[in-house]
């Protein structure tokens, strides 16, 4: 028994969204234009250590994986990261492919799982972001008036200065210069997910640093 979504074990140079079914299943469609390297054979050669066959295989499947990722993830940076995740996963578990079985269901399962993982990470980060925003609003309502004093600002900026480079950059761009995530990502070359993670870590570090400072006599 093999998975049903991917129907043919063929690849083409260009795959489009049309080849991903509405349910997000991958469907490889033969275009009959002779563009199909045999993925199964290429992977068998790759398992034997053939570098050229492996490179050809990865190049050949990338548009197909990108089509699936694009279907589930709107963001270009997320799509690129997911494609890289899929390629890395394929590399690490290429020993699990059995050349007697069709290649497409094997690839489809890995790609689908990695896309789902990315969607989950994004959802978790979004929820965390929302929680942090709420916490900030609550904190603002009950804020200690002495925090408006110049010394408090100094302490905050001093703490920001002590953050690791990535975290400091994320805080400066997103919270001080108030750039959007997209703008900050374009400016730094970091992905949106990486920026969210860096900001979250920066909050935690700042909280720890400021609490330590307050406790000091």
């Amino acid at each position, binding site marked *: *028994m*093999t*998975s*049903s979504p991917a129907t043919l074990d063929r690849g083409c140079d260009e795959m489009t969204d049309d080849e991903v079914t509405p349910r997000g299943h991958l469907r490889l469609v033969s275009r009959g234009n002779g563009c199909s390297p045999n993925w199964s054979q290429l992977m068998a050669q*790759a*398992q*034997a*250590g*053939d*570098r*050229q066959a*492996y*490179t050809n295989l*990865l*190049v050949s499947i*990338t548009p197909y994986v990108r089509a699936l990722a694009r279907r589930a993830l709107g963001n270009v940076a997320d799509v*690129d990261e997911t*494609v*890289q995740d899929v*390629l*890395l*996963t394929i*590399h*690490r*578990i*290429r*020993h*699990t*492919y*059995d050349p007697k*079985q*069709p290649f497409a*269901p*094997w*690839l*489809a*399962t*890995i790609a689908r*799982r*990695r896309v*789902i*993982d990315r969607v*989950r990470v994004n959802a978790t980060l979004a929820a965390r972001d929302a929680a942090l925003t709420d916490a900030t609003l609550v904190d603002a309502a009950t804020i200690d008036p002495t925090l408006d004093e110049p010394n408090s600002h100094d302490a905050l900026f001093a703490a920001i200065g002590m953050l690791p480079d990535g975290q400091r950059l994320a805080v400066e761009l997103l919270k001080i210069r108030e750039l959007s995530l997209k703008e900050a990502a374009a400016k730094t070359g970091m992905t949106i997910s990486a920026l969210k993670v860096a900001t979250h870590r920066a909050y935690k570090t700042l909280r720890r640093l400021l609490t330590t400072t307050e406790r000091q006599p």
Partner: protein
Amino acid sequence: MSDIQALITSLGQDAKPVRRLWPPALRATLWLIFATGLIAVFACERGLHHDLAHRFERREFVIEWIGSLSIGVGAAFAAFYLSVPGRSSRWSLLPLPGLMLWLFSMGYGCYADWNRLGLQGLIPTTSFECLEFIIQTTVPLSIALLFLLRHAALVRPVSTTVFATLSVAAIAAAGQSLTHHFDTTIMVLIWHAGTTAVLLTAARLVSPRLMARLVAVPFSSR
């Protein structure tokens, strides 16, 4: 050169020969052979049930035993197939007929006990010998199963762990039926079904973290 192109170039250069994973059916068969050997050792050590031949003449016992064995075999194959990318999720249906047979025979046994002995027939008895056997068989069986699953990609970590646990519990139950000297269905139901339920819940809770530690490339749950 884009990040993806650079990655492909880098992975292509790193394409060392790899040893293919053994087919799931072969690994499942190996594990079942190991399980059979282990139970045979315990049977030799403890001795078979004093009236095993007579037990196998009873239709309900045979149905229960075959049900338990079918679950063990079916769940083992399901676990190994589900752990490999590209295999159909329909493999998870494989233990279902055995499970239905087993539950039916257990339920029927309880009903028969109740008819024969009244409420007294439903009062569970305890047997630490039974618990000891469960531990002695399930621990090595689980270790062997994890050993054979460790190189899999585990695209479905929870399903794989649940079926692996179910298989271990059912094989242990089938083995115990051959050696256990009590014959009280309700007790067997509580010990086996209860232990299986506890193990399955534990598997469900810990499988993502456990598998993340055990396998090279874990995937998230479900």
